């Protein structure tokens, strides 16, 4: 589960921290799994959900290929 600082579209949006880390959702991913991978603790998925509320309305609904901020 590799992070990058390349935002969706490749250009850092205005007001976005250029050092924000991004992760592209892979088949079979859940926020819990992503949190477990990056933080060691799946219960911290809420941190990822909070950081992506501009694109996520439900933590259970993420799409393959979607780019998520990993704060």
């Amino acid at each position: 589960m590799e992070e990058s600082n390349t935002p969706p579209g490749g250009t850092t949006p205005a007001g976005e921290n250029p050092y924000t880390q991004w992760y592209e959702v892979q088949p079979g991913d859940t926020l819990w799994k992503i949190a477990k991978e990056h933080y060691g603790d799946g219960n911290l998925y809420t941190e990822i959900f909070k950081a992506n509320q501009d694109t996520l309305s439900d933590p259970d609904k993420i799409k393959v290929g979607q780019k998520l901020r990993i704060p």
Partner: protein
Amino acid sequence: MKHRSLFTGFLSMVLAALVLAGCANQMEPAKKAIADIEAAISAAGADASQYIPDQLQAVTGQLADLKAKFDQKDYKGVLAAAPALLTQAQGLAGAASSAKQAAEEAARAAALEALNAEWASLSGALPAQVAAIQSRVDILSKSKKLPANLDQATFDSVQAGLTEAKGLWDQANAAQASGNVEAAVAAARQVKEKADAAMAALGMTAG
């Protein structure tokens, strides 16, 4: 008739002797004039060749002409041209000193400009980089177990490095506020080094 011839011969010899004496009288002053010019050029030193090479070349070229005149025994010509050339030669040291000073000031200004540009770049990027690291450290501090690619010792080291980086960043800003851009950039470079190391240890990408 014989007396007139003898007199004419004697007069010629006297005139020749007078001409020779006159030349001999001018030779030493001409020699000294050339030596004075050479001494003035020498006094300008290496700075002249480094900072005012064209001016130096003009003077040494004229000196070569003067020496050629001397070799041709044109002492009068040497003495006529020498004062103006001596003035030029004596001006070399001052001109070289002024040109050196101007070059040094330009170098200082260029160095300061480069430091200001580096500061602008670092001060624009570092707060965001440190904030991104702090965010990750804060979340990892809540984790019951660190991720597989991060052990406790490395995480402790990242936290210590982040604390140091923030302290250095305060120092950098204080130095900048007091006008010491050199110290500000030196501290900011250390912040950048620590921030890059922290990001690498956390598996974050700096760009």
